[in-house]
């Protein structure tokens, strides 16, 4: 029994070590905030370990992303409520606005640099901005399909929506991203 438990512990450790970086980036793209992203990843890991560690290893990935997406959705809901309160109370967060302005007005350098690294870096920056600008559902579907390589049904299961919705979200996300990143390619 003890050996089984240690084996499960090691499997879970390996699984989380493999997925944590991607989970963090997904949360960071969705929230635009490092600390919030870390908190979301922590909550996700905690719930997976506490509630679902007894499930089969093959199920962990889908469960992990279900929890992660749910946490990200919760975060957006909370933010939306907070923003509503802010607008009622006429609070202005100059710092946030400054950051948003800086991102929005960030000049896109379309000059063709000979340095490939620089091109990649520009593509990454553009990709981050474009992904963050996508509606949440499109963003999540796109990342699960392209980055995690999940098929339509797996993605639909995680997102708790139909396969046709996944196809629609994915097609729209792809179209927008290609349009946004045309200059970087």
């Amino acid at each position, binding site marked *: 029994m003890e050996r089984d438990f240690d084996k499960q512990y090691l499997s879970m450790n390996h699984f989380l070590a493999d997925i944590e970086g991607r989970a963090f980036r997904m949360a960071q793209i969705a929230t635009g905030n490092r600390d919030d992203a870390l908190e979301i990843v922590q909550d996700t890991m905690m719930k997976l370990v*506490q509630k679902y560690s007894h499930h089969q290893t093959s199920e962990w990935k889908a469960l992990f992303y279900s929890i992660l997406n749910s946490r990200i959705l919760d975060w957006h809901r909370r933010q939306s409520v907070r923003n509503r309160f802010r607008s009622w109370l006429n609070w202005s967060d100059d710092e946030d606005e400054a950051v948003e302005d800086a991102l929005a007005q960030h000049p896109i350098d379309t000059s063709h640099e000979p340095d490939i690294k620089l091109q990649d870096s520009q593509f990454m920056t553009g990709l981050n901005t474009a992904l963050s600008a996508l509606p949440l559902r499109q963003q999540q579907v796109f990342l699960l399909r392209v980055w995690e390589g999940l098929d339509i049904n797996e993605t639909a299961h995680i997102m708790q929506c139909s396969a046709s919705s996944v196809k629609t979200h994915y097609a729209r996300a*792809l179209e927008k991203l290609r349009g946004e990143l045309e200059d970087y390619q």
Partner: protein
Amino acid sequence: MTTEQSQFKTFETKVKTSLDESVITLDKETQQALASIRQKVLEKQHPQSRLNFNTWNFNALIPVGTFALCALLTVLIVYSPDNVDDSTQRMAAQQSVNHEQYEQIAMLELFTNPEDLETTTDPDFYVWMDEVLATEDIDNAV
């Protein structure tokens, strides 16, 4: 595969490569924070689960042990040798009381029934009784 599909594939591959790279190039501080979170989560679960397992075994034994103890005490109290003797004596005493009560009731019935009382007080009854008994003795002798 059409040209457009090929372009889509190329774009997807480029996006994936770029995202993978963004994970590899995460700053040291974030990487450490993620590793620390993972360790904390696993450490929190690991000893707790071991404890839970032991506690589960122990907890499972509590009701079973209590039931066994109660059953044992019940058996000892009910079927103890003293109690068995007492109950036998009690039963014998009860039977004796029952017998006396039966005789008293019979006497009471005899006295309360006027016909029976008349019969027992009539001297002719005893004469008749002697005759009957004498006849029975002769019959038995023959």
